[in-house]
Structures are given as C-alpha cells and as structure tokens.
C-alpha cells in the first residue's frame, strides 16, 4: 500500500472532483458512525409516545428537540439515522475487506501459478456463481441467525467472486510483462514476485473494487434489514427504519424519505469515490466493474 502511494501519478487522485466529492461524503458517513453516541441528541431506542410522528423541526408543528422529527413509537429519527450509519459502515467495511481478502488472495494465486491451480479455483467460482445470490444469503442467515456479522459473512461469500474474476484477469496481464520474468531470473521466489511485482500493479484496481463493493454492501445490508434478516430487533438500521415508516407514510413521509436519502447519499459517495479512483488510477477498466 505504501509502495502504491509512492508511485508516480498517485497525486493526481486527489485532484479528481469525483474523488473529492465521494471522499467527503464517505468521510462524513464514517464520522457520523464513529461519533454517533456523542452526536445523537437522544437514545435511538428511547420511546416517547407523547411526541409520536413529529415532523422535522423546520416544518409547522415541529419540535426543535427532534431535528428530523420522530417515528411511530416516538423515537428520534436523527438519532436513529446516526446509529444506523454505524451498522451500514460496519457492514460496508467488514464485508468489502473480507471479500477483497478472499477474492484477492485466490485471484493472485490462480493468476500467477495458472495451470491446475487456476483451473481448480476457477471451477469453484463457477459453482458458487451458479447459486442465485439472494437464495444463498437467505440460506446463510436462516442457518446462522440474525446479526451484522452474519450479514457481512453472507456478503463476503457471495461477492468475493467479483474480486476474483476481475483481479485474476489483471494478474494474468501483469504476469506477462517482462519485469516479472526479469524478477524470476534474478532469483525472486514466487511469493516475492507476487508481493513486490504483481500486487503493486493490481493495487489501483483493488482499491477501486473495494470502494464500489462498500456501496454494494450498504444496499445489501439495507435490503436484508428491510426484510428483517439483518440486525436484532433492538438495533437501529436504515432498512429497519424504512420498513417501520411504511405504516405511517400518509401521516409523515419524512420518516420514509430520510433513511432512503441516507442510503442514497452513502452509496453515491462510495460510487463517486470508486469511479473517480478508477478513472485516475486505471482508465482501461471502465467497463469491467459494477453490478
């Protein structure tokens, strides 16, 4: 990683408007998640039935103590959103790093050694990819029970193949270069070649995929918590908030709009970041990534 940031052209990354905008959004979400206990004006699970279904503070009838209003059980929407960001960020980071590690390691091994190793891992991926992903994650959650860690695990098991496929083809092209042959002639071991010659060349793609995968993980987590297969009942998550707000959509649409907006902004941030990184780091791969 340090080697990558020392390479020429890495400075360009910080001048891309995509990267700046995406980076700011993502940083804001992570900060909200990190400091939620200090930022939140109320306990997110604290029910105050006297002030049910309040509109946001700037609307008629709003209460300045509840900036984004309250939901059907009188819980503070702002506080729930802030705590929801914790779940979203946690899943985004754990799931995408897990998928990257699993897919990346296998991609480098398969791409570098080729032959039988490549064949074996490739067929394994084929089998895994022929399962419908939704069914696979439903089976996993049903078998393992709910909880953010299980959601992250489900995402890792479904999405590592994306990293594997894209990275393996990149490794194959890097291994063809003469500098890899030169390193072999100088007596580098296979692990040294992968670590020092191949990995620095695939790192830009790795970072880009990672950023895009985080956006995907946020969406998947929202879907699973929406259908009640993600977090425990006493935890605030954006999907849970959307599910709850459906019942009151005619009284106050804000309850529905705000968590959707949160998901939207977060995913936009990750995608802008990923897109910007892709353009600045590796323009050849414009069409290969994405869901």
């Amino acid at each position: 990683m340090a080697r990558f940031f020392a390479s020429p052209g890495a400075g360009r990354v910080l001048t891309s408007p995509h990267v700046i905008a995406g980076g700011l959004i993502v940083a804001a979400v992570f900060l909200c998640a990190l400091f939620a206990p200090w930022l939140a004006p109320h306990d997110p699970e604290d029910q105050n039935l006297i002030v049910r279904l309040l509109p946001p503070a700037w609307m008629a009838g709003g209460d300045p103590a509840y900036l984004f209003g309250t939901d059907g059980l009188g819980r503070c929407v702002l506080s729930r959103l802030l705590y929801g960001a914790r779940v979203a960020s946690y899943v985004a980071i754990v799931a995408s790093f897990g998928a990257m590690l699993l897919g990346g390691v296998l991609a480098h091994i398969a791409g570098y050694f080729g032959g039988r190793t490549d064949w074996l891992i490739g067929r394994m991926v084929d089998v895994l990819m022929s399962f419908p992903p939704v069914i696979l994650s439903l089976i996993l959650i049903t078998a393992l029970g709910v909880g953010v860690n299980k959601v992250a695990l489900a995402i890792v098991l479904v999405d590592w193949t994306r990293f594997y496929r894209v990275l393996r083809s990149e490794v194959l092209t890097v291994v063809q270069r003469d500098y890899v042959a030169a390193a072999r002639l100088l007596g580098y071991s296979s692990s040294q070649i992968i670590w020092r010659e191949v990995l620095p060349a695939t790192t830009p793609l790795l970072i880009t995929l990672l950023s895009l995968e985080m956006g995907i993980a946020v969406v998947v987590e929202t879907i699973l918590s929406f259908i009640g297969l993600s977090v425990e009942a006493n935890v605030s998550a954006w999907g849970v908030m959307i599910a709850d707000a459906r019942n009151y959509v005619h009284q106050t649409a804000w309850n529905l709009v705000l968590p959707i907006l949160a998901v939207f902004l977060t995913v936009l941030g990750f995608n802008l970041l990923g897109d910007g990184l892709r353009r600045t780091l590796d323009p050849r791969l414009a069409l290969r990534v994405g869901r």
Partner: protein
Amino acid sequence: MALLEARALTVSLDLAGQSIQVLRKVNFALAEGRVLGIVGESGAGKSMIARTIAQMLPRGFRVSGGSLDFDGESLVGISNARRRDLLGAEIAFVPQEPLTALNPVLTIGQQFGEHLARLGLARALCGARAIELLDAVHLRSPATLLSQYPHQLSGGMCQRVLIAMAFAGQPKLVVADEPTTALDVIVQARIMRIMLEMTKRHRTAVIFITHDLRLATHVCDDIMVLYAGVPVEIGPAKQVFGAPRHPYTRCLQLTTPSLSAARRELIALPDRMPDLAEFGRITGCRFAPRCPLRQPRCDAEEPPLVEVAPGHRSACLFPERTGTFIQEPPIVTGLAAASASDRDAILRIEGLSKKFRRQRRFWRRAHDDVVAVHDVSFELYPREFVGIVGESGSGKTTIGRLSVGLDEPTAGRIMLAGRDVTDVHNAKSRAHRVATIQMIFQDPQSALNPRRRVVRIVTQAMEAGDRHAPWSERTARAQDLLAEIGMPSDAAERYPAQLSGGQRQRVNIARALCSVPKLLVADEIVSGLDVSVQAQLLNLLLRLKRERQIAVLFISHDLSVVRYLCDRVLVLYRGAVVESGPTEAVFAQPRHDYTKALLAAVPPDDLTQRWAALAASGQDAGLAL
C-alpha cells in the same frame, strides 16, 4: 508542374498557452512518377507530414503558415466532402502496421469489394478486378485469398493486399508511412520492389516515409532529411547520401553499422532529439546542441535552407564542413575471435528442441505441435559475442528464453559454466543460473516495473531470494551501476516513465549487470530505438566486453548490427541452425541459400552497386518464404 507542392508549410501545436512549431517551413515539390523519401528519427515530424496531406491532424495541431497544394488545389482547410473524394481515390495511403490496418472480422474479398465499390466500380465487377489487382502485387492464388481473413495471412501478404488496395483507384499520389518497419528484411525487399513496380506502371508520385537512410537512398529519387520538425537537407537521393552537406545526415550514416565496409567504431551523438516541449526553447539551429561541428553562431541564428549544389539544399551555416569531419572513425579493435580450444565453454547447448503444444480441441485428436526450435547445438565462450539472426518466427527468442530458463526444453541439454541446468524446476540449478546468466529484454517499457524508482530497479538482485542488502549498500551499488552504463547519478531517483527509450534500455542492462553475471542474453535490445541511440548502446556493450570480460548471446534481426558486435553468428531458419561461423566469414561468403537471401535483402552501402533484391522480378526462385 509539381503534383504536390509544399511552400513554407508550418504546423503548430498550442501547448500550455504557447505555440510550438512542430513542422517548420517545409518546402518540397513532388512531380508525377517521382519518389520522395522523408527520412528522420522518431519525433522528427515525418508522420506529421502524412497527416497534414490527409488533413487529419491530431487535436490541437493546425497548419499555421504556408501552403500545401495537390494538383493545383489547396489541401489546407479543404472541406470534409472534398477530402473524402480525394482520399483513397486520388491520394492513397499505405500504413505502417499491415495487420491492424485490415478489419479482422471481414474477409479480404469483402474489404476489397467495399473499397472498389467506393471508387465507383459496379459490385458485379469487383471480384474480377480484385483478383487482377492482387495478381499485380504477385500474390499467389488471389481467388482463394479473397475468401480468407487477415489473420490467415502473414504480415507481408497483408501489406501487399494493402498496396494493391492503395493502387486500385490509380491514385496520383501514394503516401507510404514506414510500410516495411513491421516486416522482416526479406519481405521488406520484396514489398519495396512491388511498390516501385506499381509506381512505374501507373506513373504515381510517392512519398516514402522511413527512418532508414540507406533504404531510402535505394528506393527514392529525392530525399528530405527532417530533424526536430525542420527539413535540414533536401536533394537528389544519391547526392544526399553520397555527399551529405548537413552534419545530421552525415551522423545518420556514421551511426548505422555497415554490412560490407571495415568494422569502424560508431559515432555516438550525445543525448537525443529534443521533444515537442523543448522545440520552443531552441533559438538557433535545432540540431546545434548535438552537433559535432557546433559554432557559437549556430545557437544564435537559424540557418536558412540554401542551395549547395543544383537541386541540393542544406540548412547549415557551414555546409562545406560536413565532409571534413570524422572522415574515418577508428577501426574497432579487441574483437579478435576468442581462441575457443583452450578454454571451457560458459554455455554449451546440445540438441536443444522446443515444441509448443497447440490448444487441443476435443474433436481433434492428432497432436499438431509447433516446433519452435529443432535440434540446436552451440557453444559460447567467455568474452565472446555470439549473434543469432533470423526472421520473426525462426525461434531466436525461444532459444534465448530456454537458455536463461524461462521456458523448459522438450529435448536437449543446457550446460552453464560446466553444470547441467536443463531442469528449470531444480532449485540448485536455478541458483546457479541467477549467478551466471541474465537477460536483457526487448521492450524496455514492459521490462521495467513502472512503480519502482531506478535505484530499486537496478539493485533488484540485492533483494531477491533470501538476500537482504542494507539500503545504504544498495544506493551505493546503484551509483556504481549508473556510472558504468553512462547515466547521471540523479537518474536513480526517477521512475521509468521519466526516462527516454534509450535510457530505459540502459537501466535494463544495469539491472542484469547487478548480479555480476558471466553471460548476458540480449533479445532484440536495439530494435525499437533510433539509430543514434542504438549506436550509444552498441558502444556500451563493446565497452562492457572490454572492461567486464562479459559474454553476450545477441539475438537480432538486423544483420549489420550483428556484424558490428558479434564474433560469431548463428543463422536460424525455421527453428534450426542452417549456418554458423565467424561473422566476417559467414557474411562475406554465405554458403546456405537462406543466408544469401538474408544478406541480399539488406540494401548495400555502396551506391554504385545495384540492390539486386529490388531488380529481381516475378516470383522468388529458390526458397519458399
């Protein structure tokens, strides 16, 4: 009247608010049936002239002065519709890369028919006309060719198809931009012959763009030498080559090794041609910074193109001095053939063969293996340079890769400094190889990791395996190596992308030298470089031979380079050695037909000598190439 006439043609590029003259005051007049050669190294602006004729300048470039008239009509600012009418019909192009110029998913017949239909021929007649035209470029069985796809043809055949297409509309002007650079020498001679034949038949005017001054002299009537966007010399071909009046032209001659004359040291011009961004900073003559005859006046005033003999003009303030400098560079010494008998071979290859297995299809059971190398044996002694020559696909590169252990031989034995290293998987023989043999790769772009600084590239050997040299030791070693290959010490902190092609190739050599090998395998290491940079590298290798006692297996398609550098030569044809021996003896008296054909395909240095390959007509007798 001239068919194509350029008067003070100037093309500019607006770069960072500054206008840079990429082509400056180009003057020439080309009459019907004449061939004008435009000669220069890469970056000289040769292709820019072709693009200006086609009025397809890259974004940001524009004609900022002068005129370019074709048949009495100005090409500058021509309407798109009129340009489309002209191109392909009146003005035709022959491209540099024949394989990429044809559409891979259409048959030759479809592409040819399309082109003929565009020229206004009735569809029904296209087939017959195409066969006629392909026959004119001496392609065998043109009828079957029409149903084939470009990948089924060789590069030379594709180029002939493209030449047939270019001449299909009986154009008045053909622009050939390095038409033979991507092809083997034997094919090059034939392509040139066919082009000249077509030109004579149709009285076509031709602009022939090349980096090869010697080739241009044999092919062209007139030659224009370009340097950094400025025409420095223009005149009748024989005169420009025979009695050059500009120091750059003379240097081009002296940096190209000869195939027949005594082996003289090459003049290595310092540095390289300035790039676009540097053009603006040069006030006087653009060649002055590298010119061996530089005078204070050269930096101050821009030399005008003046007539030095009838029809022969030179842009030098002192044209008469050109002939005086470095008449005869010293003859290369220290090349005495190593006495092989009393020493042990450093590399001994016995009965080496390599087959590549074609992708097996499940419905086809027969093994149709490709034999890349067949039963090759040779020895290489310390301090000896051995050249391997042959055309592309003859197995040269495979021999190099087998020698260093990047590929595994199918049969045969490889002995390296007295030890058997045939088994590429054996850890002991791998370690032995690392200490004894290294490789310099063909493409320095791909051979250097773009994410490492030069200091970390050249000392890579010191971090390989279980070696962990301290950083201070590595930087010190890097400085030694940079000094040895003639690069400034501050280059250590640069990335490969910040180096020129020649510098990258030097770094490539330095990395191989770091582990102090006894033998280097150099695979086409100068083929992508300009002649002046090539000369610098060849002299560097000779110096390493003298100072380091190093042996080199030099793989090349360029016979004159091999003659300059190597003590012995192996001629490879279809994976087998057909002739070998001391370089001088083999080149002076070739015994095998293939060697003879190879030598005949190189344009001779002596202008009084006719280039036999150009004169031969019809199908080539003898070898089926």
